[in-house]
């Protein structure tokens, strides 16, 4: 197993109390496997990835019963050891290209640096690899781009630079946080195909955080749906999309604009907002927005896996959930 995360918790002390940003999530990624994480804005997806990279905000407190990469426990690793791993064996593509690209250095310098930090190669060799990868991610005249500064690139170019940079050292695992959101669909398709090819060729594992359910359905081996710091449903892409059991997952699928939905008309939205995760929290995190909430939902709900279903965190029996899905999503579900 490439990455094994058990019971990961992230607390962030804030002025108004401790924010329980991530509350005991578990997942794993095998070689060559793609895990997609989807979920509400602010539910803790980015923090989860940052926790694996040991790049959480300074105040954040991370705990886990297991946090292992290729069998190696990441929890007790020294800063130096983690620095060696990061950008080399594990690479991250950040959601915020502008904050992870240094504005005062050229693209070329930054790419070359990444490789030379981890490998004994000449500048020339590093430069060649940078050019090769920029070309791979579909950037025209890569040589000229090397001399450019991040602010001179379009949003999409920056994101491609980030992807190329993540690939500099041939990582075993990539944590990609919204890697293709700023890209047009043709380039998105090309890059995703590139990532898939690398996975097949080198057994690279991929954790893909994205809001794009279309991509999830097509890329994922496994899907984890997060809500308010917890995983509320997980399974293969097929089960999640064809048999969504959690009311939140069903809600997500219902609010997509789609050709068959009437133009310029309101989309279905999930009413309300995510609960504050500060201080003591109890019960189903989704109950304030759930059409099926009942008194029992005020008690904590465990992620459970009844016979004939995949894991989901809801008190409703699978059969009831399936009826609801049919009502919300139509006969297809």
């Amino acid at each position, binding site marked *: 197993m490439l990455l094994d995360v058990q019971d990961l918790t992230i607390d962030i002390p804030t002025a108004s109390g401790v924010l329980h940003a991530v509350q005991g999530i578990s997942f794993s990624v095998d070689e060559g496997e793609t895990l997609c994480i989807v979920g509400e804005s602010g539910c803790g997806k980015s923090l989860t990835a940052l926790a694996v990279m040991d790049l959480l905000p300074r105040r954040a407190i991370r705990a886990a019963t297991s946090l292992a990469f290729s069998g190696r426990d990441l929890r007790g690793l020294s800063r130096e050891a983690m620095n060696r791993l990061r950008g080399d064996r594990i690479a991250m593509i950040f959601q915020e290209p502008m904050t992870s690209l240094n504005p005062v250095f050229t693209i070329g310098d930054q790419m070359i640096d990444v490789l030379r930090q981890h490998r004994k190669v000449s500048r020339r060799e590093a430069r060649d690899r940078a050019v090769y990868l920029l070309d791979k991610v579909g950037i025209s005249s890569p040589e000229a781009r090397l001399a450019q500064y991040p602010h001179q690139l379009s949003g999409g170019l920056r994101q491609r630079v980030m992807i190329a940079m993540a690939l500099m050292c041939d990582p075993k695992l990539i944590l990609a946080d919204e890697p293709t959101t700023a890209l047009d669909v043709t380039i998105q398709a090309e890059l995703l195909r590139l990532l898939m090819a690398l996975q097949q060729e080198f057994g690279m594992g991929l954790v893909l955080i994205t809001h794009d359910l*279309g991509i999830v359905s*097509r890329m994922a081996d496994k899907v984890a749906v997060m809500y308010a710091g917890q995983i509320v449903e997980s399974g293969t892409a097929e089960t999640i*999309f064809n048999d969504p059991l959690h009311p939140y997952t069903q809600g997500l699928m219902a609010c997509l604009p*789609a050709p068959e939905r009437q*133009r310029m008309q309101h989309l279905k939205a999930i009413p309300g907002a995510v609960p504050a995760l500060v201080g003591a929290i109890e019960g189903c995190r989704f109950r304030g927005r759930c059409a099926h909430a009942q008194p029992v939902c005020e008690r904590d709900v465990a992620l459970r896996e009844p016979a004939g279903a995949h894991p989901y965190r809801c008190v409703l029996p699978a059969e009831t959930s399936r009826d609801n899905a049919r009502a919300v999503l139509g006969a297809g579900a």
Partner: protein
Amino acid sequence: MSGLENHPVVLEMRDVTRTFRLSRGWLRREMLTAVDNVSLQLRKGDVLGIVGESGSGKTTLSKMMLGLLAPSAGEVLLDGKPLTSFDRRALARRIQFVFQDPYSSLNPRGSIGAIIAQPLRIHGIGTRAEREKRARELLDVVGLPSRLFDSSPGQLSGGQRQRVVIARALALRPDILVCDEPTSALDVSVQAQILNLLLDLRKEFDLTYVLVSHNLTVIEHMTTEVAVMYLGRIVELADAENLFGNSSHPYTKILLRSAMTIAPGAGIPDVEFDRGDPAFRVPAAARQSR
């Protein structure tokens, strides 16, 4: 037909071009034409969608509409008058923007309340108390809990920040809003809320939109007209219904083919094409005059 053909033209671009110098050396001075001779008209109530290649000039075009970037050639007209004849403040009251990147567009040190009220402050509108009240209203309009009023952007998720950006853009009650990828950082339920908000605002305040997005289903759902850009040019401009129904341009066709609908296990469409093919740069037959 979008039914808006009798509405007045509010914003017009005439043969607008913008070039940048690509290489920094003294010897090789490569010029890059980011926007290449673009003309378009925006009528009151229009929602103009702009789609196209990454790097095809959508943001550059948007910035020129906003007067944030000067065209190298051609002109931009607001109500028939050159954009350059408006001062910054007058312009800001007419036309506002929501940019692609919710991370870099917010001052990390301001409080959310202060950020939303900032345009009001700059324009000297209202008393301090009135501005605060308006900022709280706006927070509510974009669906953010009032407890975030005193938070800083660093404590917000991407989606929450984008709502702050929209709230700030609405503070001056502009009548044109240019949104560059307003929902690309958002999950689909928040996206639905924001799109519904944009639809409501359009009805309520008679807003005219420019909506830049890579998400074709969003464009299809939200727009009256669509411009497809490729290498700085508008290669196709059509009513939204027409474009998605029967597009005539080869690049548009590829674009539509690469859209990733939900299809478990279907894999990623293989849409590799020769970006250098000159056929892609030739605009589709001019749109029927409306």
